């Protein structure tokens, strides 16, 4: 099973780009199964259903969506195997910019919106810096100069990634993404590791505390001045 993990900010065009790329794989008689991870709601499964790709939704609800995606990878792979797919494609919710659910041998794809400004690549963290491929979308909405600056900024953060400029509406560039997916290798989960560790999230807020005042909080906590400590027994 080859595994493609797609991360990117909400609204960057992850689904649109994937629909075009998977259609191109379909044309080569390669089957994919998609798992779309979101927090509360998504109707993206209908977009994949339209091109005949089996899709499953995972709503993480109270759990961090990236932690949820990682925890459920095994089940996703067995489901894709049942579908006799060549590819398992996991589309993440991508919210906090701190996690990167890419594993060592998966193909890590980061989708990033060029209209979000040239400082965005510096802000988004490991899901860009540890990706194999950075797909830049909406480049047709800005000038060539801005596009070139955006590209340079991505390379500052991740000098080894391959950049694909894609258009989720017309599908431009998406065939190139499909070609990269073809080059990816089989993954077995037995020895598979994450590329980047997930952040600490062990505090009273994680288990439902709603009071704001500092004295109610326990666990591994970081103050705004950068001091981090363990509060508790």
């Amino acid at each position, binding site marked *: 099973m080859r595994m493609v993990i797609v991360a990117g900010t909400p609204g960057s065009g992850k689904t649109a780009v994937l629909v075009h790329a998977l259609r191109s794989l379909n044309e080569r008689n390669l089957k994919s199964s998609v798992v779309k991870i979101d927090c509360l709601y998504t109707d993206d499964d209908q977009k994949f259903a339209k091109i005949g790709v089996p899709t499953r939704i995972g709503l993480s609800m109270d759990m961090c969506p990236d932690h949820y995606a990682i925890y459920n990878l095994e089940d996703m792979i067995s489901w894709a195997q049942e579908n006799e797919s060549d590819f398992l494609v996991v589309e993440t919710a991508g919210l906090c910019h701190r996690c990167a659910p890419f594993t060592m041998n998966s193909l890590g794809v980061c989708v990033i919106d060029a209209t979000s400004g*040239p400082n965005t690549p510096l802000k988004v963290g490991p899901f860009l810096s540890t990706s194999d491929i950075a797909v830049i979308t909406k480049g*047709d909405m*800005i000038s*060539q*100069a801005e596009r070139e600056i955006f*590209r340079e900024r991505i390379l500052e953060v991740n000098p080894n990634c391959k950049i694909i400029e894609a258009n989720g509406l017309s599908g431009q560039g998406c065939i190139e993404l499909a070609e990269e997916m073809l080059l990816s290798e089989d993954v077995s989960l037995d020895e598979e590791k994450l590329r980047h560790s997930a952040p600490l999230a062990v505090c009273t807020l994680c288990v439902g505390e709603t009071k704001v005042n500092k004295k109610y909080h326990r666990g591994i906590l970081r103050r705004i001045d950068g001091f981090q400590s363990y509060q508790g027994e």
Partner: protein
Amino acid sequence: MIEDITIVGGYDKNGDKEPVEEITIKKGEIFGVVGPTGSGKSSLIGDIEQLAQEDTFSKRKILVNGEEPTYEDRTNPRKKMVAQLSQNMNFLADMSVGDFLNLHAKCRGASQVCVNKVVNLANTLTGEPIKQEHDLTILSGGQSRALMVADVAIISDSPIVLIDEIENAGIRKHDALEVLAGHGKIVMVVTHDPVLALMTDKRIVMKKGGMQQVVSTTPEEKALSQKLNKIDEVMLSLRDQVRNGEVIGNIKMEDFGIQ
């Protein structure tokens, strides 16, 4: 050294083969791209900008000097053979004009000296002057467009120049075209404006996403272009007078070069 580029036709929006199978544009030639809105003019320009290799939805292929360009040629802005002035009128980057131009010069491997030149050139094309310390996002449509033109002309100085609809910009379009086209370049201009269309050597007519035919500009059209140019100059000077708060007297048809 780029001597020519060749567009090898692909498929239109209906999936039919494009009537124009192949067209070569040589150094020093100016080509127009015409057709109704939605006919695929910008997509054609986009294919050339990316030096498409049957990997876009039109399945067109662009050859440089009759050969396929390398991946490096297609993607590295320092090697980039194509400068493009797109339809987008506004900047989204939240930084000053000077910082932006410095960054872009760095991307393109151009000298930082360019930055002053770009601002000075932009100010010859537009009304209110642009300063380096201005924020990009507060520039007016005309100022943005003038800055983009100057940036393409100086920092993105490339042998292939693609211009998408310069006429809607509120800037001096003939001066802008002259600045961009330079000498010995391959130039393509997307336009709805007959003045510009007739200034070109040939024009590609687009329909339903495909290249329908290639029309060579006739000597009659070239002569007509001169007349249209005069009309345009009159219109421009009237525009300036209105802008400056002057009251316009009557105009004579002779001013238009028409008897």
